[in-house]
Structure formats: structure tokens, C-alpha cells
């Protein structure tokens, strides 16, 4: 029977090697990083705006103006909250807890849906429209396009930062980005029936969350070749 090997001392040359590698790869201090992060997020939203305008100018398409205004006003705080919960790391470098991330990914589309119900009930004429499968699919694609800017920005902010549950962080980031897509979509989509809203507006939130979860391992996980 053999005895376990002893623990070697930390070699001195390793310290010099690592400090040299650090010097060879300068990283800006936090203040500059914060400015860069704000710029990245701003660019993400600029991209969303550009995509929105490229697809169509904002148009009521027969809906009451107040309906659109209230919907955007109600959903914007939800998107902000989802971004804070899903993209922010709280006070830990390890980010939010897995429970928190799961709650963000699951509850955001649910809250969006639940907050839409009283709005549409207040304007019952919006419960009926002539949307077809093509319109549902188009809104799914448009939501994906509108969420692309925030998604890229958020994942850039969190790139290589999660060593524990990157798939959950990716899902939460996807949800937050999709929430912004959902906020902007009513500006150009004239269909408001429950079927269309479920398939064209809420389903893509789940899809983007799933996409974020699937890409989390590559986008936000700590990896040997992350940088």
C-alpha cells in the first residue's frame, strides 16, 4: 500500500511567470470598464431601434393609441427588472443564485402575459383580429431580431464571467433581451388577439431564453480560451 504524495510548495518561478503574463495582457480598471459596459448596452439598444425602424415605422394599425402606450409603459419596467435580475450579478462575482436565475427566466414571460391580460380586457376590441400562422411566425422572427441587440450586448457584458451555472445565466440573459424585444414589438405589430399574442409575442421570449441557455456555455461560461 502506497502513501499519498505530499503537497509541493508553490514554485517561485510560477509567481514571476503569472505576473509577467498579467503585465503582457493589460486590462483597464473598473471605472473604464463601467464606461465601456454602458457604451455596449447603449449600442445594443441603438441596434434594436435601427432594426425596428428597418422593419417598419411605428404604426397603430387600427389599435387604440392608449392600448399601445399602456402596454409599452407596463412592459418597460418588467424588461428593466428582468435585465437587472438576469444580467446583473448582485454583490457577488459569481452572479445571482441558480434559483434567482431560474425565477427570472420563468417568471418574466409569465409576468408579461399576466400584465397584458388586464390591458387587453380594458380594450376588448383588441381580443379579435385576423391574424394567421404567417403573422405569428413573422412576429416570432421579428422578436428574435429585436432582441438581438440587447442579447449581444448583455452577453458581451457577461462574457467569460460565470464559472458555476452559465446555462442558467444564459437563459436569464436571453429572457431579459427577449423582454426588450417584446416591449418594442407592439410598436409595429397590429395583431392583438390572445392566440397571436401567445404564439407571436410570448412564445419567442421562451425561445430566446432557451437559446440563451443553450449558448450560455459558449458565451458566458469561464473557459480556458474565453478571452
Amino acid at each position, binding site marked *: 500500500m502506497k*502513501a499519498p504524495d505530499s503537497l509541493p510548495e508553490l514554485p517561485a518561478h510560477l509567481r514571476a511567470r503569472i505576473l509577467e503574463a498579467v503585465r503582457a495582457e493589460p486590462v483597464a480598471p*473598473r471605472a473604464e470598464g463601467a464606461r465601456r459596459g454602458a457604451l455596449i448596452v447603449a449600442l445594443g439598444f441603438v441596434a434594436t431601434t435601427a432594426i425596428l425602424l428597418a422593419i417598419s415605422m411605428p404604426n397603430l394599425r387600427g389599435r387604440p393609441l392608449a392600448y399601445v402606450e399602456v402596454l409599452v409603459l407596463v412592459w418597460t419596467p418588467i424588461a428593466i427588472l428582468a435585465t437587472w435580475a438576469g444580467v446583473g450579478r448582485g454583490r457577488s462575482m459569481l452572479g445571482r443564485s441558480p434559483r434567482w436565475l431560474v425565477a427570472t427566466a420563468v417568471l418574466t414571460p409569465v409576468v408579461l402575459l399576466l400584465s397584458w391580460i388586464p390591458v387587453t380586457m380594458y380594450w376588448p376590441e383588441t381580443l379579435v383580429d385576423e391574424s394567421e400562422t404567417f403573422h405569428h411566425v413573422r412576429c416570432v422572427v421579428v422578436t428574435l431580431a429585436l432582441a438581438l441587440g440587447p442579447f449581444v450586448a448583455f452577453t458581451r457584458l457577461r462574457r467569460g464571467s460565470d464559472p458555476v451555472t452559465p446555462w442558467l445565466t444564459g437563459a436569464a440573459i436571453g429572457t431579459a433581451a427577449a423582454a426588450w424585444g417584446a416591449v418594442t414589438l407592439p410598436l409595429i405589430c397590429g395583431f392583438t388577439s390572445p392566440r397571436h399574442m401567445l404564439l407571436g409575442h410570448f412564445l419567442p421570449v421562451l425561445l430566446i431564453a432557451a437559446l440563451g441557455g443553450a449558448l450560455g456555455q459558449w458565451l458566458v461560461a469561464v473557459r480556458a480560451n474565453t478571452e
Partner: protein
Amino acid sequence: MSGQPPQRSACSQCTVQSPDDGIVSWLGASGVTTMLLPKLSRHVGVVVLMDPPALDLALELAAVLPRVARDTSVSVEQRGGADLAMERYAAGDSAAFAQVYDALAPRLFAYLFRQTRERSRAEDLLQQTMLHIHRARDRFIPGAQVTPWAFAIARRLLVDSMRRGRREILGDGTVVDTGVASSPRADDLVQASQVAVRIELVLAGLPASQRTAFQLIKQEGLTVAEAAQVLGTTVAAVKLRAHRAYEALRAGLGEIGVGSEANDDDPESNLAAGLKP
């Protein structure tokens, strides 16, 4: 000392007693031994009393048993030192990274070497871990704890490295011969080192989740809350995993006649001593 009578173990030179309320005492031992044996007893939940010739053996055993010999308990000052150094580094003091390294590297290297059993690989993973910490300079959160974050990075890089199939780590229970068994007191040392090898084998045979939880808490000196952060789970789950590992360790040592009777009436007491969140 405990009021319970000493129980003879399979080792002719060893006497096993239950710890008294988590306080481990050592009879007839030197000060150095007093420092070393409690570490062994904390791991196996027993107090080992030996005759004077066995004391030297214990010291040698401790020298070849990393998880026993190396004091990985970390003071609040050391933890705070890493946090403060990283804070200064993120704020713009480039020279502070050397202090971040000094505060973290020994513990991370010990952890990585225990997992890989390969010096060059542990060094490589340590370098990658420190570079990840360095790259997060521009997004370091003020007041964030550095230690659990650093261990989580190291663990992730280690797991990725394992997945890439570079080398099988642990699992097969193989341990490295350091040549200690060929010393002049080889017979006695072999007898004493049965405990050490048994610990190795039991830990190697545990599910990875239990082994990792146990190692992070008992070997690396992380609190339960920090280990929970590193593993991405709850404090309760980490306590349960570590407890199961602890029970398996006790059962494994019981098979060779060490510690099987120790403290059986209060299995939580030893655990509680080392599992404070």
C-alpha cells in the same frame, strides 16, 4: 478529555477516543503534534493517542498526507486581504495584483494539485485561474468576495480540463509512492499510513458532488456558504453532501478499526464543528 474510556484500535500503538465537544486534546505529545493531530482527528472524528515512538510516525504520516499536514484554515485577515487587494487592483492600483496572487495562489495551487496530482498541470490551471481573475479587473464588483469566486473559476477550469480528457483525475484510488514506506521505520509507517490511504480511497470512491463539498470545506477552508457559491447550490445541499462524505469516511475508517466507535451517538457534533456557514 472525554469521559468515555479509551478504545483500542487495530493499530497496536494507537488508542482511539471520542472527541469531547469538538475539543481535541493530545496526551503526552509535543506542541507540534498537538497542532497536527487535531487536523487528523477533525477529518476522521476521533482522537488518536499514540505511544512516544508513534508520535514521530504521526508526524511523518502528516507530512505525506496533504489534507492533514497542511493547515488550510484561513483567517479572516487572509480573506479580507484578498478582497482588499482585488478591490485596489480594480480601482487602478496595478501593483496590487501581486498581493492578490500571494493571498490566493497557495490555496488554489493546493486545491488544484490535490485534484490533479500533477504539478505542471496544477501550475497551468493556476495560471489560467489567475489570468481570469486579472481579466475581470474592469468588472469587479465593489465589496465582492474573491475567494469563492477564485475557487469557482479554478474548479470550472479543472472540470473543463477533465472533460477534455487530458487525464483521469482521482477515481481509481491510485496514489503516488513518495518513498516514505522505505524509511527505516517502514513497518510502523505502513501500519499508520493505512489510515491515510484509507482516507484517500474513501474520498476517491465518493460521488463527485460529495467529495467536492467535503474537500472545499475541510481541506480548502471555505465556509459552507462559500462552498455553496462555488458549487452553485444551496447551503443545505452542501451540508448534506459534506455530511454524507463524512459518514462514508467514518464508515471506511471503521473497516480498518479506526474511529468506528467514535462519537457515534452524536454524528452531527463533528460535522457542526466544521460546517459553520
